[in-house]
Structures are given as C-alpha cells and as structure tokens.
C-alpha cells in the first residue's frame, strides 16, 4: 500500500513531442504528489507538485494530471526540448508522515 508505481522505465521522444510519464498509488491517505527532475551527476530537484483537490496543475511546459478515482497521476511535458533530458521521479506523501514514497524513475531522452 505504500508503493508508488512509475512507468515507463525509459522513454525516447523527438524534440517538440509530448512525453507522458505515469504513476499509480494505493494509499488513499496520500495528500501530496510531487515530481522531481534529476540531471546526470546532480541531486533530484522539485519540478512540480499537486494535491488531490485539483485535477491538473501547469507550470510552464510541465503539467501534472491527477485522477483521484483511478489513483493515478501523470507528468506531461509540452514542446519537449533536448534540455529536458533527465530522469524524472514521481513521489507521494501525507502530512502526518515526513517521508516521501518514491517511484522508480523514468529516464527521458529528447532527441534533437
């Protein structure tokens, strides 16, 4: 119940395409769903996050879609660029627990 399942493991998209990364969870007590971006040789950094009271959140070219009934959320990158090539992690947490439950990560490559 504590798991967050992330797919796909890797993804290759042409520049300008819209990569989509999906995550699913079981624990309905989760109330915060962030996405982290990690470039090679760097630590992960918060990209965008959503709470379950909204179905979508946009920040620039990045959008989280959230489906509470299906217990799924996804990251969409509009007009993807080679500079978006990185590993993306989804995660989940609840306010009463100070740990993030992490997905396994998706290695995204945007081809020029």
């Amino acid at each position, binding site marked *: 119940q504590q798991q967050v399942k992330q797919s796909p493991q890797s993804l290759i998209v042409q520049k300008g395409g819209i990569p989509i990364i999906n995550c699913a969870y079981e624990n309905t007590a989760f109330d*915060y769903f*962030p996405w982290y971006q990690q470039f090679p*040789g*760097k*630590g*992960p*950094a*918060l990209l965008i*996050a959503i709470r379950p009271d909204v179905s979508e959140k946009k920040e620039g070219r990045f959008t989280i879609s959230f489906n509470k009934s299906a217990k799924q959320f996804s990251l969409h990158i509009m007009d993807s660029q080679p500079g978006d090539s990185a590993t993306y*992690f989804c995660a989940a*947490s*609840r*306010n*009463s*627990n*100070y*740990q*993030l439950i*992490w*997905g*396994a*990560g998706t*290695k995204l490559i945007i081809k020029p």
Partner: protein
Amino acid sequence: NAGVTQTPKFRILKIGQSMTLQCAQDMNHNYMYWYRQDPGMGLKLIYYSVGAGITDKGEVPNGYNVSRSTTEDFPLRLELAAPSQTSVYFCASSSSAYTQYFGPGTRLTVL
C-alpha cells in the same frame, strides 16, 4: 545560502574500511534524510531525522549509522564497507512533510 552540502564528492574505499559522509544544511530545516541511488535505480531511504537528537531507520539501514547532534548536520557512518554499498549517496532536508531539497551527492565505490 548554500542549501544542502555534502562531502566528499567522490570516495573509493577498500572492503572493511569505514568512513563518514558529511551532510550540512543552512536552511534551518528540521527534517533530514539519507538516500542511496544505485545505477539506473530509484532512491532508497537509509535513515532520516525529524530533529536534533532524533533519528529513525528507513528502508535500507543495515551497514549504516547516523547521528544528529545539531539541526545543521546529519553525518552518515559506514562501518566495515562492503561492495554492496557502492552507490551514490544523497542527503536531503525539508521544513515540512513535502518538498525535500537535495545535496549534490557522494559517489562511493567499495573495492
């Protein structure tokens, strides 16, 4: 404001040696975490702390120890290093249950 700093950046250990990975944050965060990331894999929580003097085990604590004597510092101790501990180690901190801020990592190889 340096954020989360980690030292060293790289280290090679021989089997059976010990070392301490240093982590410091200057954001006055109560919560601090140690993760390991194996090649092509996700993050696994080793230990975490909710404040000075309070630590708890994460998912993979065996072979490691931590201490938290101050809010700023959260060192990770490896005793009797083993090849299975070859990994990249990340320290993170947060002020709430939500956003975690990560350091640049320590790449450790045990031969």
